[in-house]
């Protein structure tokens, strides 16, 4: 019985959240349509302090539609229940996000280990891996024709959903026959004696080693990863901005904001399309860690330079909306002394 409740809960969550978001209503499938919808309620346990939600378009349309969204159609519920791999992908996605957040927390490392860790981190950032199983597009599939929506692949017509490869896998050359890297990218991704590039309109260019055929890099293009004008990938149903950005960017009827791949994206609530990038984050600095490479220069905004100057005891560095105090001798990041936003 508990399982059944869980299943229904998950289904409601998956289907209702985007709908709730669209209407500025409450996520989580509570079925509250009439009240004042707001962004603060959407955040999953991120603490209060937010501003009251904006309701530029009034609350007139909240009730009926939000309530309908919170109680998905029986057929939809059944379809969702029937697609077990989909549910698994949904759960794995959430787990991946949780792991990512854990990864952001303080980790004590030293010396070479720290450098390696950082290098790997930055590589991962450059090449986001969206290859975990089937790509689902954040529940926005409901804007597709019903038949395609069920596929959960972003409205791709039959036969166009491509197999995606991961880094380190051997590329299957025959899958790329008849395709060329798009002209716009050819000057950047030209074959070399060591590497060759493949593209199959899946949204990714693959760089493979000529000798082994192993994929050494995946470059997301429009349609893969994040890109302006494309659908937000799965797993970003909930408001997830870092604390220091929450006052500036919060969900409204007009725009949703989502953090991913070290940027904050503005998303159209109706279509789930990424409309713009409103902030870029470096994601490097954490209290308790040593100052990583790449912060050699003093970089504080003008307004803070009088107050926080590099000295014999402390250095100060800015990143991602925060000013960090760094021990001048040990180069350990000791504290966040200002949050700019």
């Amino acid at each position, binding site marked *: 019985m508990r399982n059944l409740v869980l299943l229904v809960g998950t289904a409601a969550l998956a289907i209702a959240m985007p709908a709730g978001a669209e209407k500025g209503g409450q996520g989580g499938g509570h079925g509250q349509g009439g009240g004042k919808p707001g962004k603060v309620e959407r955040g999953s346990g991120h603490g209060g302090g937010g501003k009251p939600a904006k309701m530029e378009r009034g609350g007139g349309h909240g009730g009926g539609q939000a309530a309908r969204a919170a109680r998905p159609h029986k057929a939809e519920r059944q379809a969702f229940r029937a697609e077990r791999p989909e549910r698994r992908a949904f759960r794995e996605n959430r787990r991946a996000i949780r792991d990512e957040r854990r990864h952001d927390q303080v980790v004590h490392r030293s010396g070479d280990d720290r450098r390696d860790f950082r290098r790997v981190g930055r590589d991962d950032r450059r090449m986001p891996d969206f290859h975990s199983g089937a790509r689902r597009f954040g529940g926005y599939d409901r804007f597709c024709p019903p038949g395609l929506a069920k596929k959960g692949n972003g409205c791709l017509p039959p036969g166009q959903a491509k197999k995606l490869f991961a880094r380190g896998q051997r590329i299957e050359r025959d899958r790329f026959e008849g395709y060329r890297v798009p002209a716009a990218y050819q000057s950047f991704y030209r074959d070399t004696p060591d590497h060759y590039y493949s593209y199959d309109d899946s949204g990714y260019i693959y760089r493979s080693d000529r000798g082994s055929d192993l994929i050494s890099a995946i470059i997301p293009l429009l349609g893969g990863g994040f890109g302006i004008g494309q659908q937000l990938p799965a797993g970003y149903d909930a408001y997830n901005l870092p604390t220091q950005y929450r006052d500036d960017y919060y969900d409204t009827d007009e725009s949703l904001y989502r953090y991913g791949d070290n940027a904050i994206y503005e998303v159209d609530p109706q279509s789930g399309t990424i409309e713009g990038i409103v902030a870029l984050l470096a994601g490097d600095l954490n209290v308790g860690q040593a100052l990583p490479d790449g912060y*050699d220069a003093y970089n504080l905004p003008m307004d803070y330079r009088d107050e926080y100057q590099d000295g014999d005891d402390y250095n100060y560095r800015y990143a991602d909306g925060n000013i960090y105090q760094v021990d001048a001798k040990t180069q350990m990041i000791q504290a966040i002394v200002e949050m700019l936003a």
Partner: protein
Amino acid sequence: MKKSLFTAALLLAACQQEEGGNASASDSNGAAPRTGAESGPTKTNLLQALGASQEHKTLAKAVETAGLTRTLSGAQPYTLFAPTEAAFGKLPAGAANGLLAPEAKGQLVAVLTGHIVPGMVTAADLGRAIERGKGKAQLATVGGSDLRFSKDGDAIVVTDAAGGQARVTGTERLASNGVVHSVDGVLTGK
């Protein structure tokens, strides 16, 4: 409308006076600045600084195509190493146009974010960092790669992760939310 344009022009003129020495910022192409930030050494933001510069027309277009306009006009500070028109001209034939094509947005964002560093690193800050680092300094970009800086005589040379190089040229342009340094090459990172 006319009045607001006039006010905006006055604001721009005032900013340029404050900036002093940044003569190149005065070559306005008529783009009226939008809202100025309330604080900082200048009321022009990074986006406006680019828009007002004749030598960054392609870059300004690229920023718009990539969807980065709100990033560069927001409150968070960034240091932009801005390829000039001449820099885009050095790319292989068709590459600049290819980058600006609608289907290349992902790549365009990747290239542009490889030129953006968090915070405000002025030329003086950069010079001091290079001095302290015995001729070298390294800055992390928001695109995930690092830029390395060194000096060649008086000029500052910037090298990307793949060894591509450019020189910092002209005078820095201070903005309310960061600083723009012109560079004479596009750092494609490969």
